[in-house]
């Protein structure tokens, strides 16, 4: 556990010190959400209806922002070689790095969502629904993104390719995240059904994605 805690703490320190990922992600989220009313018009009913979906799409794009550097920075300065060498399994290293990345970017997005939801005419129940579904769903986005980040780690401009690889894989998360958020706002579907599937996707990602990302990273040095 000690090496993993040390890694988590180091990544948190870097995220805080560069001032990058956490604040930048939230600002990007804010910009995306605030341009929606300009694009679709200031009709309150329309905004209230598409709000959960807009918040989820914005959160998805904001999560991808900066995810390409998840392993790239370590590959460039040689830390990744030392992670591969160490006795700590690379899968756990990946999981610890994802945890730090989620706390630095995914968690602030979920916490900012209710405030941004106010700009999209969301009712209290819908605000709570979006926040809870983002809390449950963004770990899956980070973990799935880690596969893309690991696969494109040696590419100089890997960010776009990573987005192309990752976005199709995140569609199930988006479907059930938005479905659960809309069910919370009222509807025919009970909240628990899509929300349980969303949680299941996050847990399955936690179980599988570190292995896929670690397998991709092992081939980097070769």
């Amino acid at each position, binding site marked *: 556990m000690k*090496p993993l805690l040390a890694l988590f703490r180091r990544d948190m320190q870097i995220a805080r010190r560069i001032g990058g990922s956490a604040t930048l992600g939230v600002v990007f989220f804010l910009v995306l959400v605030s341009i929606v009313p300009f694009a679709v018009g200031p009709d309150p009913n329309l905004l209230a209806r598409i709000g959960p979906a807009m918040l989820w799409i914005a959160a998805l794009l904001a999560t991808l922002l900066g995810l390409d550097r998840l392993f790239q920075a370590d590959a460039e300065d*040689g830390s990744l070689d030392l992670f591969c060498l*160490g006795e700590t399994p690379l899968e756990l290293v990946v999981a610890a790095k994802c945890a730090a990345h989620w706390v630095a970017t995914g968690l602030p997005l979920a916490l900012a969502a209710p405030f941004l939801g106010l700009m999209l005419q969301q009712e209290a129940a819908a605000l709570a629904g979006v926040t809870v579904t983002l809390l449950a769903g963004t770990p899956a986005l980070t973990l799935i993104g880690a596969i893309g980040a690991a696969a494109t780690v040696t590419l100089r401009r890997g960010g776009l390719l990573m987005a192309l690889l990752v976005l199709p894989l995140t569609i199930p998360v988006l479907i059930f995240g938005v479905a659960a958020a809309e069910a919370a706002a009222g509807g025919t579907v009970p909240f628990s059904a899509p929300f349980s599937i969303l949680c299941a996707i996050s847990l399955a990602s936690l179980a599988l994605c570190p292995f896929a990302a670690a397998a991709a990273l092992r081939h980097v*040095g070769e």
Partner: protein
Amino acid sequence: MTNASAHPHAARHSLRLRVDHLCVDRGGRRVLSNLSLSVASSEALVVTGRNGVGKSTLLRAVAGLLPKAEGAIELDGAESGELCVLAHYLAHVDGLKAALTVEENLDFWARFLGGDDETPKPTTIADALSRVGLAHVAQAPVAILSAGQKRRVALARLLVAWRPLWLLDEPSSALDLASRERLARIVAEHRACGGMIVVAAHEPLGLADARELSLEGAT
């Protein structure tokens, strides 16, 4: 300062690194073919040869970062079969985060490489920094250090977690004369503790009775 007798791990048992008929391919080309070498405790092996001859490839292969096409790499006398966890690898890059201070970088590597067991740290971070002559920059961010100073911080990483085998790739690059003498002293102290060193170098490192392996290059 640490000495051989105070070292918690030193000379518990003697080790021997054995590389037999090693062949390594990179990008479809055989870079190393049929290479054999052996390094025992307290020995140093200097690998020399022209650019591109495979010095770094040899070190990466021994560290387990490159797959070997043929041959065997073994550490005789080791309790665990995993060679890589008994080795420090110092590459061309230093493995340091520019945003963190020197002390935070070393603290991370000490904790990460130290593993779960509660063995006492072989060398404290302050001690390691004073041995590379950088005690005065412990609180400075790595971003403001010169290339030679970063190299010395990377050398200090070797001191904060004990590994019997050191694989050093051009450790003296960017180092000034005084720092090279420090490097030679650190290497000598590691060997006095029963450590093994395999170092790729272009220039003499001033190591006492080090053996030399000159790579001629694969055909």
